[in-house]
């Protein structure tokens, strides 16, 4: 699975992109975010308040219950502020 981070989430985690071997017990976005938080350190801090975290799977906005699979592109970022 490819993980992408943008804006202050990228800056706080200190990483724009990483490859992840998805642990088999993770089936949904919520589980993925829990698992990333459980890494601690910068991850735990960046993902502390999920109300300001948005997720896209394969470039579509999704909710916490959306499934994630090996091979997905999962992007994690704050609410957008373009335009």
């Amino acid at each position, binding site marked *: 699975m490819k993980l992408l981070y*943008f*804006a202050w989430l990228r*800056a706080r985690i200190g990483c724009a992109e990483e490859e992840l071997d998805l642990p088999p017990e993770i089936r949904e976005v919520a589980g993925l975010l829990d698992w990333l938080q459980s890494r601690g350190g910068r991850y735990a801090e960046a993902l502390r308040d999920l109300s300001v975290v948005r997720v*896209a799977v394969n*470039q579509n906005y999704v909710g916490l219950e959306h499934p994630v699979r090996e091979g997905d592109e999962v*992007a994690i970022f*704050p609410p957008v502020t*373009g335009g």
Partner: protein
Amino acid sequence: MIRVQREDFDVGVELERLAAGNHRIGGLSSFIGLVRDMGGEERVSALTLEHYPGMTEKKLGEMETEAHRRWPLDAVLIIHRYGRLEPGDRIVLVATASPHREAALAACQFLIDWLKTDAPFWKSEETPAGERWVESRAEDEAARRRWKLCP
């Protein structure tokens, strides 16, 4: 048409091209977003726009398609820049052309409202107090809701 680019654009040329040769068009509506020198109470000396290459084009393309579905439009243009910009610089151009002004005006407003909440761009501002990420505005979510878009 959708363009995501670092470079500036020429508004006159773009609008001219949008309507060129199509004499069915009676109204051409456009919106240009510019970099302001104030962000809340802070003076802003520059702005950097980050985006999500791939998803940006996909979302803008979906917005273009939805505008065509809702209104009788002859042309739609969205140009959005990324990278470092200074006060007065153009950020975005949305333009819509239709036989009738109502459709052109409504579609232009729809596109900029939607783009504000759903196009994956993020701004960070350079201020005297340092660099900081711009926060999203509740008003933008409210403007989006007007158009009854799926979440």
